[in-house]
């Protein structure tokens, strides 16, 4: 098993953290994992993306140009990365900002109204947790519990956010598994 995911969006949308949560979750359950961040030249704002590969075998290339999954938080990210998806791949899309789905027929999409669900869960700041929850469920890579473990490791020391994030992860997970 080897799955690669690209998380992409605007700086400030918590894209890197999403990848980080996946990486920690995967490591915690004993998988191999590689995480590659990529930033634009801006210090704040701008675009950002990261690539996370998880596998139960040795990971050769940490780079992928045929991801199994793409998580896009805004329209330009969708436009840039969805065309790369493997046949049969899955796009997890932030429908708060993304109103259309990709043109491709050979992939699946999941629309996640992140801001709306996050508000429900308690705060807009948890929008990225909604998405990673949905991602976990849709990808089948992680159980909800595993995702929560990864979130806690990724945010080590910031315990005060744990309850809100847990709620948001669950909400996102439920959206897919519902």
């Amino acid at each position, binding site marked *: 098993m080897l799955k690669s995911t690209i998380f992409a969006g605007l700086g400030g949308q918590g894209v890197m953290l999403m990848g980080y949560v996946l990486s920690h979750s995967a490591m915690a359950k004993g998988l191999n994992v590689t995480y590659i961040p990529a930033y634009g030249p801006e210090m704040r704002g701008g675009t950002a993306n990261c690539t996370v590969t998880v596998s139960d075998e040795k990971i050769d290339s940490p*780079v992928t140009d045929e991801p199994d999954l793409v998580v896009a938080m805004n329209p330009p990210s969708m436009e840039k990365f969805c065309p790369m998806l493997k046949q049969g791949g899955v796009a997890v899309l932030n429908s708060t900002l993304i109103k259309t789905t990709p043109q491709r027929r050979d992939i699946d999409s999941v629309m996640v109204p992140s801001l709306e669900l996050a508000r429900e869960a308690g705060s807009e700041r948890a929008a990225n947790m909604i998405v990673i929850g949905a991602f976990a469920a849709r990808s089948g890579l992680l159980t909800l519990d595993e995702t929560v473990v990864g979130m806690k490791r990724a945010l080590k020391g910031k315990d005060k956010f744990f309850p809100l994030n847990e709620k948001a992860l669950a909400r996102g997970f439920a959206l897919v598994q519902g």
Partner: protein
Amino acid sequence: MSAERTLMRGSNVIAESAIMAGCRFFAGYPITPQNELPEHMAARMPQVGGTFIQGESETASINMIMGAAMTGARAMTSSSSPGVSLKQEAISFMCGMELPAVVVNVMRGGPGLGSLAPSQGDYFQSTRGGGHGDYRVLVLAPGNLQEMANLVYKAFDLADKYRNPVMVVGDGLMGQMMEPVVLPEPVNPASLPKGGWELTGAKGREKRKIYSMILGQGELLEHCHHLQDKYDRMEAEDTMWESLYTEDAEVIVVAYATAARVMEGAVKRLRREGHKVGLFRPITLFPFPKAQLRALAGEGRCIAVFELSMGQMVEDVALSVGQRSEIHLYGLPSTIPTPTQAREFLYSVVKGDGKVGRRYEI
């Protein structure tokens, strides 16, 4: 080794492994993509009784570690391409004065300010001496973060063994990426053997002096031979490489670090598709595993060089292979190499259609 895996960024792996190796002095100047390295040191050095100085420049920083090395301390500096250029004079001095230390280059795209993308364009600088005079540094190019941890750790031993700077090179991708790593066991610096040349104060012994100016007729020539003997010894004793499926391969790719890692995936895929391809990965760039690669070259075998530069390592490959095998080169400076690019090069060499990369003549 403690068996605990930690998810760590490449820069932090380098820094923490150095501390584990007993490094207690670090000086460096910020530069992307390795800022987390000095930042790690700034936080950690005080905790382990070591010193972190943010030098006023790369030049100052390497001169600081040269000072620390004078006292026998394990010392390190790090930077990225333009900053490493500024260290070249001092590296030449350190080789001349036979001072052990570790210099890290997390390469970025060049020339000039270039880009922040992964690149291997400082291969010549690292292996041929960007500084002046006849000298070499041992250059280690780990292929993943676990190997990074192990080799940074080993770099300090090698530096001490040869009384010579050792360089560890990576690229922006390796500096920024994260991977689970098992850190090596901590070394207690006080337990390290002394070499008998360190400056510690002339107490109960003759004074010592360390210098590189050697004016007496024929003396510098002699010193150069002494240094060369060490470089020859490095080649004999500490050349490192790895090969995969090379026994029966008809096409052997030579690539290192990130390029090798991406290539490894491609090689495996082509193998699965029935193509006889293999991978030869130099781990020491200097000494380059010449004899080992030469042994693999020959009739009916083709060598394919894949590097994130325009054609630098290919010269070492050519010096190893000579005319025994055809050599093909695909150079991709300042690029995150994709599995597709790696594969297409391989297909092209396998088919011999010359569509990707070019033939390197010797």
